[in-house]
């Protein structure tokens, strides 16, 4: 081995903790990239295989009592290669062990499984052999603890059907199956498949279909097919026709993957940039201490490149160690993350994947980053003139600092003065350190903010805008007198009618599927709110529109909005927008129920009721609801929210720790490395001070005081930057159903600043070993 390499190895050993700290940051960057991409690949591979296996359709439509003959017309649409129309019905179903009835969707099994789409894949038990047998969604069976062989009674369109659950499995349409509120609630979201005759009998739709799925030829544009299907289904229209990209289950998966992809794009560069900056600091410091050795090597005829290469090698080693460690950790975490996803996305074959290409690319980027970090120092080493290098650098000239304000200055003790003067004397170094701290804090704020933002969304959606404790959906439009009946249900103290419908809304910038929500002007259980949380009243025939919807459509208050209602005779409406509602979930158009009824040509009708019910009567209410033939769905706020909190708490407890640790690692790495550099630069100083009678504690104060001052200085910047990051995340994560508010709450600040302080403190603690090992004699004997 060349002697320069021997020196490099010894330097490495001496610098090992610093190298490790920087490599750790590089490793995190690589790790997040590898983890996210491996998990993405795992989901993608599992999804592709499952979709192909089960012939997942491309276009999905819904209808009420559509004649079977219509399928021929659907099949004739250009680009359509297969049509699968099924009878289906929805209703409620009490399940032993559950406190409230589950929503049930009953779907007919195909006559010919081989030619069907969206095929059910059996994972346990067997397929139905008799009319009164059914197979169920595995997610439901597991969450509701329904044993195979259990007999369940579903109430569909007022008719009770008794079904024995003989098998469990999955379907590509219900990989993820959210509740009405879009929050997951597997135990109360039952999907059952039974023989066609059973389903037709239950839904009373003999010879008709309620669901249709279409498979398109490879490359056929769904966008062209969807309107044609919509037109054919219009006379029987129930739900709007959607392409796969808007299908609830697939969309949820796509969104989850998109979030992961965004993290994989944002996080690694931040960590690698910090690693590069620290590599720069460490190598620059190394060149500074070794300038005489560099000069000597040059005096002896080493070329510019030869003296510069060791610093680049050092950087490459840092990058390489980080890449390998990060790759391994990333692969491991990807397995864990894949396991986590497997709980949500129940693909039958779901195996962890290792994406070599991503590992190779992120490793190269990591090594490139540390090399870039060392390039300045290497250039400096190469350009050091040998004669200059031989002269020791003149001691840095200090001045009385501007930070020492005259009044304050007199009261400052000398150690504090030393701290302030150093910060002022080396502003670039101080600035880089503070910047590193700020980035760390910003990421910490981001990890915490997400949790608070989701909280805010739930609070706004379920406690401020939607204020009902239970919501009933009627199987068909019902006369307003039905509301009086619901008021007589056990425990109900208030009931308000609603009339909801699906619609397409159109503005100059686009067309969106929306929820048209008809409420009474004096409604108290649903109140659209403005930006400061005040309820907005409905005015005449004007509508109130979700701000996010207005933005997507390019509309403002005062404009009119075009609405194609997907119900009844499917009228086209053009209504003035009187105000925008600042809500966080759903794209909603609020309209006066009376106005909507009139425009639809209906009498005084409601599609459902919002209720306030006392908690103690909940059990009785639930039992009654199942027997009400007119009620096809019921949502309960407290249960929904509690269930959601449960799930997010579980999910967050893992990921938040994970990201908290990662983000804190930056502060730790910066504190430790900059501390080491300061310690090395000031070892003589500090040792001399100790020789002169300063205590070790006082010397420690000089060292940590500087870090603490910079950490404090970085605090407001970190919070500011964190808010910016949060805004970016909110933009990147924004979806139609969910928009996150940038809510930096006191809790967010408290947790993130505590973690930040802990990370900086830990860095100092690690430094302390070095400081207490300071060998006075050795330090004073060597000439630096």
């Amino acid at each position, binding site marked *: 081995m*060349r*002697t320069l390499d*021997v020196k490099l190895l010894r330097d490495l050993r001496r610098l090992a903790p610093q190298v490790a700290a920087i490599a750790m940051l590089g490793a995190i960057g690589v790790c997040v990239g590898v983890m996210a991409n491996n998990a993405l690949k795992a989901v993608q591979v599992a999804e592709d295989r499952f979709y192909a296996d089960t012939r997942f359709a491309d276009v999905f439509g819904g209808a009420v009592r559509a004649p079977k003959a219509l399928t021929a017309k659907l099949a004739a649409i250009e680009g359509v290669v297969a049509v699968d129309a099924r009878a289906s019905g929805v209703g409620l179903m009490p399940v032993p062990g559950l406190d409230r009835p589950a929503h049930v969707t009953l779907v007919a099994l195909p006559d010919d499984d081989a030619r069907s789409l969206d095929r059910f894949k059996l994972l346990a038990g067997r397929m139905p052999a008799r009319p009164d047998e059914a197979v169920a969604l595995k997610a439901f069976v597991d969450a509701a603890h329904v044993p195979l062989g259990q007999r369940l009674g579903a109430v569909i369109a007022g008719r009770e059907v008794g079904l024995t659950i003989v098998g469990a499995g999955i379907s590509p349409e219900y990989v993820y199956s959210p509740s009405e509120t879009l929050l997951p609630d597997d135990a109360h979201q039952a999907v059952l498949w039974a023989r066609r005759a059973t389903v037709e009998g239950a839904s009373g739709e003999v010879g008709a279909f309620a669901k249709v799925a279409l498979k398109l030829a490879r490359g056929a544009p769904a966008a062209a097919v969807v309107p044609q299907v919509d037109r054919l289904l219009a006379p029987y229209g129930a739900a709007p026709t959607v392409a796969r990209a808007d299908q609830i289950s697939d969309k949820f998966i796509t969104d989850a993957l998109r979030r992961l992809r965004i993290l994989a794009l944002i996080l690694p560069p931040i960590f690698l940039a910090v690693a590069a900056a620290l590599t720069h600091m460490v190598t620059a410091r190394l060149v500074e201490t070794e300038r005489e*050795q560099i000069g000597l*090597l*040059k005096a*002896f*005829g080493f070329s510019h490149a030869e003296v510069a290469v060791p610093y680049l090698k050092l950087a490459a080693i840092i990058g390489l160690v980080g890449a390998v460690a990060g790759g391994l950790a990333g692969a491991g975490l990807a397995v864990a993350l894949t396991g986590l996803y497997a709980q949500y996305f129940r693909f039958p074959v779901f195996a962890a994947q290792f994406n070599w290409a991503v590992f190779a690319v992120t490793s190269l980027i990591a090594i490139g980053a540390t090399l870039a970090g060392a390039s300045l120092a290497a250039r400096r080493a190469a350009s050091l003139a*040998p004669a200059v290098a031989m002269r020791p650098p003149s001691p840095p000239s200090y001045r009385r600092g501007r930070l020492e304000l005259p009044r304050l200055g007199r009261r400052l003790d000398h150690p504090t003065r030393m701290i302030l003067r150093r910060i002022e004397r080396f502003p670039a170094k101080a600035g880089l350190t503070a910047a590193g701290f700020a980035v760390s804090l910003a990421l910490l704020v981001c990890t915490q903010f997400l949790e608070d933002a989701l909280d805010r969304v739930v609070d706004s959606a379920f406690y401020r805008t939607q204020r009902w404790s239970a919501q009933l959906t009627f199987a068909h439009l019902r006369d307003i007198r039905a509301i009086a009946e619901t008021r007589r249900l056990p425990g109900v103290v208030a009931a308000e009618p609603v009339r909801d419908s699906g619609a397409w809304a159109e503005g100059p910038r686009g067309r969106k599927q929306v929820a048209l929500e008809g409420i009474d002007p004096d409604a108290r259980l649903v109140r659209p709110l403005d930006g400061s949380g005040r309820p907005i009243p409905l005015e005449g025939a004007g509508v109130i529109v979700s701000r996010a919807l207005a933005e997507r459509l390019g509309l403002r208050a005062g404009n009119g909005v075009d609405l194609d209602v997907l119900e009844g005779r499917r009228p086209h409406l053009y209504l003035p927008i009187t105000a925008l509602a600042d809500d966080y979930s759903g794209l909603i158009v609020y309209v006066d129920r009376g106005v909507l009824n009139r425009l639809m040509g209906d009498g005084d009708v409601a599609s459902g009721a919002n209720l306030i019910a006392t908690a103690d009567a909940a059990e009785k209410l639930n039992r009654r609801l199942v027997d009400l033939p007119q009620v096809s769905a019921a949502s309960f706020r407290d249960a929904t929210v509690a269930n959601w909190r449960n799930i997010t708490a579980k999910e967050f407890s893992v990921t938040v720790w994970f990201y908290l640790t990662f983000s804190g690692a930056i502060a730790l790495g910066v504190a430790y490395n900059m501390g080491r550099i300061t310690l090395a630069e000031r070892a003589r100083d500090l040792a001399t001070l100790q020789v002169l009678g300063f205590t070790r504690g006082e010397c420690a104060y000089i060292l940590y005081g500087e870090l603490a001052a910079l950490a404090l200085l970085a605090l407001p910047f970190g919070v500011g930057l964190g808010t910016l990051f949060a805004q970016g995340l909110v933009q990147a994560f924004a979806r139609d159903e969910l928009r996150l508010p940038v809510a930096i709450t006191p809790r967010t600040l408290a947790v993130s600043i505590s973690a930040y302080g802990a990370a900086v403190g830990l860095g100092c603690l690690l430094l302390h070993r070095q400081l207490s090992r300071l060998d006075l004699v050795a330090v004073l004997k060597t000439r630096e």
Partner: protein
Amino acid sequence: MPPAASESAGQAALAFQVRGLTKIYPTAAGEVRALDGADLDVARAEILVLLGPSGSGKSTLLNILGGLDRATSGRVIFEGRDLVEASDAELTRYRRRSVGFVFQFFNLTPSLTARENVELITEIAEHPMDAAQALAMVGLADRLDHFPAELSGGQQQRVAVARAIAKRPEVLFCDEPTGSLDSASGVQVLEAIVHAAGETGATVMMVSHNAAIAEIADRVVRFRDGKVAEVTANARRKPAAEVRW
């Protein structure tokens, strides 16, 4: 005063021919003429000691002759080529092949042992001697695997001498090699330099503040205000061991 050098050294046996060498440092306070038209001839294999007041330009001359620095004007002829005109790469090659340095501050690499410090240089040399042999030459055969921190100042400087001589340089430049040593260690270092130079046939140019050291030289060059003020030849070189200060 005309240089006396050419009389004592034949043209063919010249190591350096220095003519009108000038080095000007532009500084904020005006020009500093570190060298101001210095003329000097250096014979092959002679030991030359440069004396002179602080700031008179001794180190500057050494640095230029050693290829560490560039003159503002003048000529330095080494083996028929002018160092003042040489490119960076040529200077590097020159230093790599022909020059050895010993500095006042030993400038050893602290993370390498004595042997490794020497090997660092022999690895890039064309006809080096064995590192152990070089260290034996300076009386450190029993300290091969010591790190600089485990050596005394004099021992460190002898490692530096071994490092400089191990590549068998044609010229050995020593800038105050005993400057930070006590007299006993200083004498050991001088002995090492003289012995090693004798073994390898190197020309030695040594800057010193110490007039006593001048006695080990073949010739003594006195510097004043960036010029050679006087060159005297010693009738007899005094063995380094006999020098005292």
